[in-house]
């Protein structure tokens, strides 16, 4: 009896290995995509900045300095100072971890929940599918940032509530894609074959379906981080996310707004920081998609 189980899992390993092989292939192709690599390198640099940056900057991001108010960029203050005399460069470096923290965590949570719901809906079909997907439709009926806005309105403005809001807002995005992919994989013969061998639903889902639908999930996750960052900075800009004096970029733009007309650098640099981070994830995500989905490539 145990022998047969061993055989089954060996068989299964064989089926999963091609997936790993193809991941290697993907990496090989991705390496030749310069734009994607540029995006990837930027993301790594941003992560390093977020971790190491705060130790390297000498100034306190939150300590007001009345003597240095509203100074333009200089060798002392690379990006100038804000209306409290705080060094904008230092604040941007400190804000990096907040932005990435929100981006990664909100998408990770939304992805896990969305993937589970999507697979369950696609795998079991019928009633379960109908119920889950109708709920997703309802979540999608709230346009754009509005769902996150409503959630934050209920929970109150804070970084963690922004993460919760964006996670919920991300769930249907993943659930829809995963459900579609699950449906197409489920129809493949080998899933029936594995089921005939007596594999449990749980085993089929995690060992056979999930590895086969990874590509669209990865692509969506990367691109969705860009959306999450835009949403999060937007909420903070509206005063509904990170609260001052947190050096969050959206919040920096909001509090600097009244001074930016005479001192444009106050709004310029935090905005550029957002653009760069979002751009990096979009570049990388585009590259991953082109690599994983050759249909679109020439």
């Amino acid at each position: 009896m145990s022998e047969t189980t061993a055989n089954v899992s060996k068989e299964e390993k064989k089926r999963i290995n091609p997936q790993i092989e193809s991941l290697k292939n993907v990496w090989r192709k991705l390496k030749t995509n310069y734009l994607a690599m540029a995006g990837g390198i930027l993301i790594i640099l941003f992560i390093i900045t977020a971790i190491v940056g705060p130790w390297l900057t000498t100034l306190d991001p939150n300590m007001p300095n009345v003597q240095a108010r509203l100074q333009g960029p200089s060798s002392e203050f690379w990006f100038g100072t804000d209306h409290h005399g705080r060094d904008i460069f230092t604040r941007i470096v400190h804000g990096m971890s907040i932005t990435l923290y929100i981006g990664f965590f909100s998408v990770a949570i939304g992805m896990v929940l969305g993937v589970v719901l999507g697979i369950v809906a696609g795998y079991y079909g019928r009633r379960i599918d109908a119920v889950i997907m109708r709920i997703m439709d309802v979540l999608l009926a709230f346009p754009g940032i509005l769902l996150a806005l409503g959630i934050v309105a209920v929970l109150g403005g804070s970084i963690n509530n922004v993460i919760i809001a964006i996670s919920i807002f991300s769930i249907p995005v993943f659930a829809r894609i995963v459900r579609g992919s699950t449906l197409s994989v489920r129809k493949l013969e080998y899933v029936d074959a594995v089921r005939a061998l007596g594999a449990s639903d749980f085993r089929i889902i995690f060992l056979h379906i999930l590895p086969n639908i990874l590509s669209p999930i990865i692509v969506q996750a990367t691109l969705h981080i860009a959306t999450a960052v835009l949403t999060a900075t937007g909420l903070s800009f509206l005063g509904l996310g990170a609260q001052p004096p947190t050096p969050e970029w959206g919040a920096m733009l909001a509090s600097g707004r009244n001074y930016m007309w005479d001192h444009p650098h106050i709004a310029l640099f935090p905005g550029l920081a957002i653009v760069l981070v979002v751009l990096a994830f979009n570049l990388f995500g585009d590259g991953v998609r082109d690599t994983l989905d050759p249909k679109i490539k020439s």
Partner: protein
Amino acid sequence: MFIYTLKRLLQTIPVLIGVTLVVFLMMHLIPGDPAQIMAGERASEEQIELTRDRLGLNDPLPVQYATFVGNAIQGDLGNSIRNGRAVTTEIGTRFWVTVELAFYSTLLSIFMGLMAGIISATRRNSPVDMFIMVFALFGLSMPNFWLGLMLIQYFALNIDWLPVSGWGSPQALILPVITLGTAGAAIIARMTRSSMLEVIHQDYIRTARAKGVKERYVIYKHALRNALIPVVTVVGLQFGALLGGAVLTETVFAINGLGRLVVDAIGQRDFPIVQGSVLVLALLFVLVNFLVDISYRFLNKRIELD
């Protein structure tokens, strides 16, 4: 076509129920006593009790929900906590401001997006194509509130061409519409390009060429019509993102629309206003999605409702 429309209409019913349910529950999910919130922060014990009674908060939840929906259908979304006026009155004029803003921005996105996408696709890998694609990538990576701030900084202050804020005159419209429409234009341009490139390699394009059709007609008659099919879906989704973005754009340009109303109301904890505005925006989006699906069906003869 009629049957399709009817079926599609029936499909929106569960969504409408879901949306109203979520908006209804918002009030009950807020930490604290809804009656306390509705009565205002400085309300006395009596006033709270009165509010509870008046709003039927003692009724079981399903009854409350039914009342909420019933009232909403009759145009009663409650009263503002702050000034006591009917929520529908407060929303009224502001709603049309937001619709106007969203409408023009959508037009801009579609027009710019399609043009750029078609140019890019027909001149693939040319410098023009690359320029457009880089531009589009920046367009969709920019937070629209920041773009708005930068546009004000340059066009309104530095060169003094356009007003800083406000609403009403055509000049005042330009910057907000660009601000709100850019991301959509970028997304539509990218979608149009890839869709066109896919279509252009289809067999029926070769058939058209073999028939002696002029290249211009091959692109605009035979390819574009097919390429538009996936783009239409994106336009629908984009309209949602745009309604959400309107919240930020209206804040930046001090436009007295629904988006700004929501943000202000959240700040003032005026929840009936938040509820009402969110509900109205969601309903608008559901309506637009419905229209998009109908036109999708019109463009693509092959789909059947599952």
